[in-house]
């Protein structure tokens, strides 16, 4: 275990600043030109960012709770990506000021005139809404802080008990993260159409979240390992496991998405199917069909064969593609509420670029402070010896 801490090159930092800078510029211009549209994009940005950070954190907890060894050599990559979690609240602050522009349940006169909305008002009201978002992010951040504190302590002390503590923590984390992600998705995406509901919606967002966190981790791990920043010993078998997990979660997303669609399509109850009708009329039909290919068919075909799952070039391409597809999925979920017809221009590009920049910068500054490999983890040697 001859790990030597190396500084990441400045180009990583520059890329981060470049992405964040262009994104920031586009966001500023867009907010001046069309605040309402950019606020909807802000929701896409918020949910996109939250899913990358929380997905990476969930992977860390998943490794602890399942006792996996193969992912130990690059667990820190997930931890560093998850370090950007509190910044999700920064994305939410402008939205808290503009809730009235986005959610029509925020208007008291609408709620009193509407029987359904007044029935939902104990849940859907502004103070509780803001409290839920802040609460979920903070609680998950506490878990992040505990996981990483124990892991960093272990770098020095090599104490095995800290892993056991983290296993117990991850058992508590799982239900909390499940409920938290469900609340986030219901609040920010589903309540845009407060009359519509789908009981599987939380799982839909959870599957997308795991996939986003995993794609970011995969891209960073494969790139860092190829450039020699990780500990020697990470090989094709590790790559294969990453690819297979991405493949599995891609299928899981398709399964959940189709389950949601099939039941609503079959029952054909107007208040439920209106949601899909909105995504079928005014040109949204093409976006919906493209989504099936972008989110499922292309990643599925790209990762189907055995060699492709361990090919680093393919993995990097597919993980970037999955992140783009995740953004596209959120765009498909959120924007039909804003516009009856398809709209896509530079307004939509600001937030994804900004999020990517922020994640890269958070990652970069974490690598300055901490080891990129959990050198004290008792499972590290077994993780390096991992063979399929």
């Amino acid at each position, binding site marked *: 275990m001859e790990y030597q801490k190396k500084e990441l090159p400045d180009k990583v930092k520059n890329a981060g600043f470049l992405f964040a800078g262009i994104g920031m510029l586009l966001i500023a211009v867009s907010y001046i030109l069309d605040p309402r549209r950019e606020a909807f994009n802000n929701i896409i940005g918020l949910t996109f960012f939250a899913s990358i950070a929380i997905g990476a954190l969930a992977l860390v907890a998943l490794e602890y709770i399942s006792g996996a060894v193969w992912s130990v050599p690059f667990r820190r990559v997930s931890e560093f990506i998850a370090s950007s979690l509190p910044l999700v609240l920064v994305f939410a602050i402008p939205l808290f000021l503009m809730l009235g522009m986005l959610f029509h349940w925020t208007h008291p006169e609408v709620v009193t005139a509407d029987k359904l909305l007044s029935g939902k008002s104990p849940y859907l009201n502004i103070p509780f809404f803001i409290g839920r978002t802040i609460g979920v992010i903070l609680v998950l951040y506490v878990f992040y802080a505990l996981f990483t504190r124990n892991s960093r302590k272990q770098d020095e002390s090599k104490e095995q008990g800290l892993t056991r503590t983290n296993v117990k923590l991850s058992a508590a984390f799982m239900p909390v993260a499940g409920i938290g992600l469900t609340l986030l998705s219901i609040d920010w995406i589903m309540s845009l159409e407060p009359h519509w509901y789908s009981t599987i919606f939380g799982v839909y967002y959870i599957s997308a979240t795991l996939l986003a966190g995993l794609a970011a981790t995969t891209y960073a791990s494969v790139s860092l390992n190829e450039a020699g920043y990780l500990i020697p010993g990470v090989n094709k078998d590790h790559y294969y496991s990453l690819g297979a997990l991405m493949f599995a979660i891609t299928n899981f997303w398709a399964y959940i998405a189709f389950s949601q669609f*099939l039941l609503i399509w*079959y029952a*054909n109850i107007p208040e439920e199917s209106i949601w899909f009708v909105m995504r079928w009329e005014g040109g949204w039909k093409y976006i919906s069909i493209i989504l099936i290919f972008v989110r499922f068919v292309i990643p599925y075909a790209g990762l189907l*064969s*055995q060699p492709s799952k361990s090919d680093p070039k393919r993995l990097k391409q597919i993980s970037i593609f999955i992140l783009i597809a995740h953004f596209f999925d959120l765009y498909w979920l959120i924007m039909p509420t804003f516009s009856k017809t398809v709209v896509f221009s530079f307004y939509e590009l600001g937030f994804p670029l900004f999020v990517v920049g922020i994640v890269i910068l958070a990652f970069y500054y974490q690598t300055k402070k901490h080891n990129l490999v959990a050198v004290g983890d008792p499972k590290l040697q077994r993780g390096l010896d991992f*063979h*399929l």
Partner: protein
Amino acid sequence: MLTEHSRRIGEADIMNKKIYSIGGLFDTPDSITRAAEEAVKEGYTKFDVNTPYPVHGMESAMKLKPSLIGLVTLFIGLSGAAFAFMFMYWVSVVDYPLIIGGKPFFSWPAFVPVTFEVTVLSAAVGTVAVMIALFFKFPNNAHPLHDTNYMKHVSSDRFGLNVVAIDPLFDESKVKDFLSRSGAKDIEIFYEPERKPIRVFDPKFIGLLVVIAMVTAGVTYFTLNKLLYMPPFTWMAEQDRLSSQSQNAMFTDGFGMRNPVEGTVARGFTPYEFKGQPDSVVRNLSNPLPFSKEVVDRGKMRFDTYCSPCHGYFGKGDSRLNGQFPNPPTLHSDKVRNWPDGNIYHVITNGQNVMPSYDKQITRDDRWAIIHYIRVLQRSLNAKDTDLETKK
């Protein structure tokens, strides 16, 4: 060193038998992995390793090329998907179209779950079947290694390596020497089993088929005729609801079946438009349908169904009911032949003497078609010479 199994076969047999392979047993996964590496180094290409569980790193130790079985799975899976999808298309669009839930006949989202299941099932079962067929070399139903001491151990507690005789470097003594050098114990020679011809008409086999057929038939009979009429399977049939055509105490008249509300009109049914009007109005109607082959064919079909039981197939009044009803008069009398079409229509619709109204059973257009057919019957029994001439 020959084991008990080989010795049991006897020297004379061994001389005549073809060697399949020579194998040896190892005690640890590490030693079998080393042995596989050495076998590659020796230059053997046709050798196999048998272990009780997958040993990590064995594929690279044996220098195995990636298996092509994945392509077989892909092919069978896609065939299964295509079959399931096309079968459902054929059933619900071509052969027996039913409107379900107001959806179009070709409702592909409803096909997706079944297509998925059939894909997975056919891919899994097909892959196993292909692997067994290749491994046993179809149509053989066993492998030379079956039922040996070697197989007993490699499927429970030890690790085996065997060099197959088709290897170009195969030499009995050299392989034995190699195995003992690499640390194998219980080295054994495996012979190709004698392939006995499969006897289809073996009494035991026929007996087995008969027993299977009887059991299957018995279980099917019991299930369909007895089991389904026992609770809990009858719970779906016996429900708290009014059954048509059975007594029910809920209504004062004791009938379960209710009459529709006054003025109800069934879908596709046209009420009798001359109800309550004097008969003369109806008698003066003329047949609105054209006199064509399709209409006459339709009329014949309806006549044979509804009219022929009493009037006979040719309208002669020779009932098919053998006098259980009074026979009606013939339709070929001068009186009926001279009736206008409207009069026959009036009789079918309202009934006459013993004949009831066919208002409810025969639709309006079918009644007019029957009248055309009656005219055909009448003319056929009273043909004139001019009819023959026009036929020329």
